[in-house]
């Protein structure tokens, strides 16, 4: 128990304000940079609207209607003004407000990325610990081969092979898409997460279909996270296992398992939080290749399609979301630091 003095409260408020300021400046910088890149890259959003055979009067009309005749900073100012009023603009691709589109595609990616990161954690952590505690021995070599495979195998190829073996040959996995077409539109949209929505609706056949469709892409997507998490875990663990307190614990008669999991592993949890947060963040950005192979209507596909069209409203909206994801994950990771590491309190 301790009393919060005025000076402590003041310091905390100042710290929070400073952090909020940093976040705002970061997001603003990110938006400005994306906006400029979008305007200077050789993509013409007008052509996407009018088609390549339109005459000049049509082209000019749409060019003006899209505000492209205004100076770039005026365009950016107008965009920010709309943004502050909660208006992200409409997407060329869908004609819908960008925010609605993101709300629609993001759950598909969250569902996939969450399952993938769970796979990464469940396999990657023990693998890294096993590799570190068996350094130079068979366990370490096996882990190295697995991580090398995870890092170096093209995910596109792996996706195709996965589909060929587990979908086409064995018939275990679902094919492309999030659910069998027979269930398309049958599950009430509550959270956008098909597994959750079908479970909430008590539609277990739809749940099984959604599960069958998500397991394979999630496993393949998670393979890279397995590699990353296990390599980082191994590295952190090796550092801990060479510390004197480990020898002391062993001398005191603790079993090898108790020392590895009870002492060394607990001490690397804080570092691992950052690793997992970063891995999850990159999965949430959208796994374009895996989404393409599995026809997964997610965030990555949406962002890529928008980029190819030069649809800057959609691209800016997506960039902002990605920025917010990383900011949020950093904040969560910092908050968890204080839980797991008393020194940071």
């Amino acid at each position, binding site marked *: 128990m301790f009393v919060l003095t005025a000076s402590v409260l003041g310091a905390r408020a100042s710290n929070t304000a400073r952090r909020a300021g940093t976040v705002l400046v970061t997001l603003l910088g990110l938006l400005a940079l994306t906006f400029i890149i979008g305007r200077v890259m050789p993509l013409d959003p007008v052509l*996407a609207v009018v088609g*390549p055979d339109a005459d000049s009067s049509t082209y000019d009309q749409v060019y003006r209607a899209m505000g492209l005749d205004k100076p770039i900073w005026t365009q950016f100012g107008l965009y920010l003004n709309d943004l502050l009023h909660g208006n992200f603009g409409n997407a060329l*691709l869908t004609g819908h407000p960008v925010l609605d589109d993101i709300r629609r595609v993001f759950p598909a990616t969250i569902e996939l990325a969450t399952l993938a990161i769970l796979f990464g954690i469940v396999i990657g952590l023990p693998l890294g610990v096993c590799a570190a505690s068996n350094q130079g021995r068979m366990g370490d070599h096996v882990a190295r081969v697995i991580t090398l495979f995870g890092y170096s195998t093209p995910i596109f190829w792996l996706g195709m092979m996965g589909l060929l073996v587990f979908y*086409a040959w064995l018939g275990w*996995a679902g094919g492309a898409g999030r659910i069998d*077409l027979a269930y398309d539109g049958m599950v009430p949209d509550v959270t956008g997460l098909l597994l959750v929505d079908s479970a909430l609706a008590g539609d277990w056949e739809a749940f099984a279909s959604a599960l069958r469709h998500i397991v394979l892409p999630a496993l393949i997507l998670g393979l890279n996270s397995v590699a990353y998490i296990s390599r980082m875990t191994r590295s952190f663990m090796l550092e801990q296992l060479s510390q004197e307190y480990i020898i002391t614990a062993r001398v005191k008669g603790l079993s090898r398992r108790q020392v590895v999991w009870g002492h060394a592993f607990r001490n690397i949890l804080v570092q691992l939080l950052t690793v997992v947060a970063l891995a999850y963040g990159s999965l949430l950005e959208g796994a374009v290749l895996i989404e393409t192979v599995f026809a997964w209507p997610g965030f990555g596909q949406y962002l890529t399609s928008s980029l190819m069209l030069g649809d800057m409203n959609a691209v800016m909206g997506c960039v902002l979301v990605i920025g917010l994801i990383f900011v949020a994950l950093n904040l969560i990771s910092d908050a968890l630091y204080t839980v797991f590491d008393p020194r940071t309190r």
Partner: protein
Amino acid sequence: MKTQRCKLHMGLLAAVLALGPITLAQAKTPADQLIVGMSMVNLFSIDPANAPGLDASGVNANLYDTLIKRDHGNPEKHLPQLAERWAISEDGKQVTFHLRQDVKFHSGNPLTAEDVAWSLYRVMKLNFGLATTWKAYGYSVDNIQSLIRASDTHTLVIDLPQVMDPLLLVDSLAISPSAVVVDRKTVLGHEKNADLGAAWLVTNEAGSGPFVLTKWSANDSLLLTRFDGYWGGAAKLKRVVVRHMTESQSLRLMLERGDLDLAYGMAAPDIRAIDGSDKIQVQSLPRGTMYYVAMSMKQPEFAKLKVREAVRNLIDYKGLDEQVMPYYGTLNQQPMQLGLEARLPDPGYHLDVTKAKQLLAEAGYPEGFSTTIRTLSEPPFIDIAARLQSTLAEGGIKATIVTGTGNQVYGAMRARNFDIIVARGAERYPHPYFSLRTFAYNPNNSDDAGLPNFQGWRASFFSPPLNNLIDQAGVERDAARRLSLYQQAQTLYDQQVGPIMMVSQMTDTVVSAADVKGFTGDDAEATRYLGVYKQR
């Protein structure tokens, strides 16, 4: 611990066993539904006033109706649709359409001549790319309401604003994606800021076609449901489900597994791999669009006739047709589509490196020169460009390939900022007049004229005698004389070595399950699912 592991293994095994049989049992698609896989990347507006893309036309053909349609692809013969009969006045300045009286929109509103007139007015008022078709005939937003009007509930009168062959206009009413009829009352009910329902119609429909748009989730799936009140009789299929799939091998696997009925846009190697299977049928649907190699005559090298002729001799037409274009296109060297009566036979251009070198030397380039080829980074464009790069090099022309998206490649061409381009273009429906207008016509060659809708202008090709021949054909009402004019224009284009050199005419290859029947493909990508069914 062992017990826990055992439980875990048993759980996993149970899950696998539980999932497996369900998958196998559902490997066949429902008998009354058509499951289609295709890329929907280019499907971002289905507003008839602004849906120039091929994919959007394919969707709208099922949601909307036109007044008439072509009779087996003949641009001068038409069949009734919404109009049960029509008449062209003696002087050729007026066309009168008499509409069916039993047509209802999906909303239940009756379809009237007023809806037809308003649909065309809407296209002109919004002035997107598809308005170009009607502008070419002399219509404008100011005159269209007086020139295209309903004389009574089911009679539409169209006056021609300029001297021209009225059959051209009649044909445009059959084939233009903007010639479909929208439900005026429904659209105006969704109008915002006097936009004539433009924002709403991007993702919604107000048609009278054989299917209703039930759901469209961009880059995900699209659902068409049968319209039981269709005037031409209800479709045989209850639903058509289109799933966004960009990966050709995924399409192939799903077709083989029986989870897909029909796939568009598969890559040639995948089609080749399953062509011949008794479970699959492969259909080639001819399209009007042409693959071509175009040179910009703004570049001093290509302004010279002999250099253009040299390039023509460095295109390996036969090699491209046999090795690159199977499943993508059919050899065609004329600026006019195969099967048209007005089309002359191929002139027989072929790879002749010796002649090309001689021509280059005569043009003042004995050592060749360097240039660039712009093209899309996808097959068959990139493959045509690579083959061209190789044969140009044999003649001494060193070409660097610059790839980009369609937006970037066509953008550069529209801006007349290119050397050589490998691209695709032309009217989607074969027509002698419009093909020649697209490739060979250029009324004003100045940059300021801003005529990117003419590909001849984009390539800076300017030939007054050719313009004159095309203009004459556009107003000639005598069929024999018109035919002669079209043929003279092709001969002149050949003699002048036009810079846009056709290499192939596009075909769409559609792969479907063997039990899918009645899918014949229409004159263009406006393929209707009205008569499609499954024979099980």
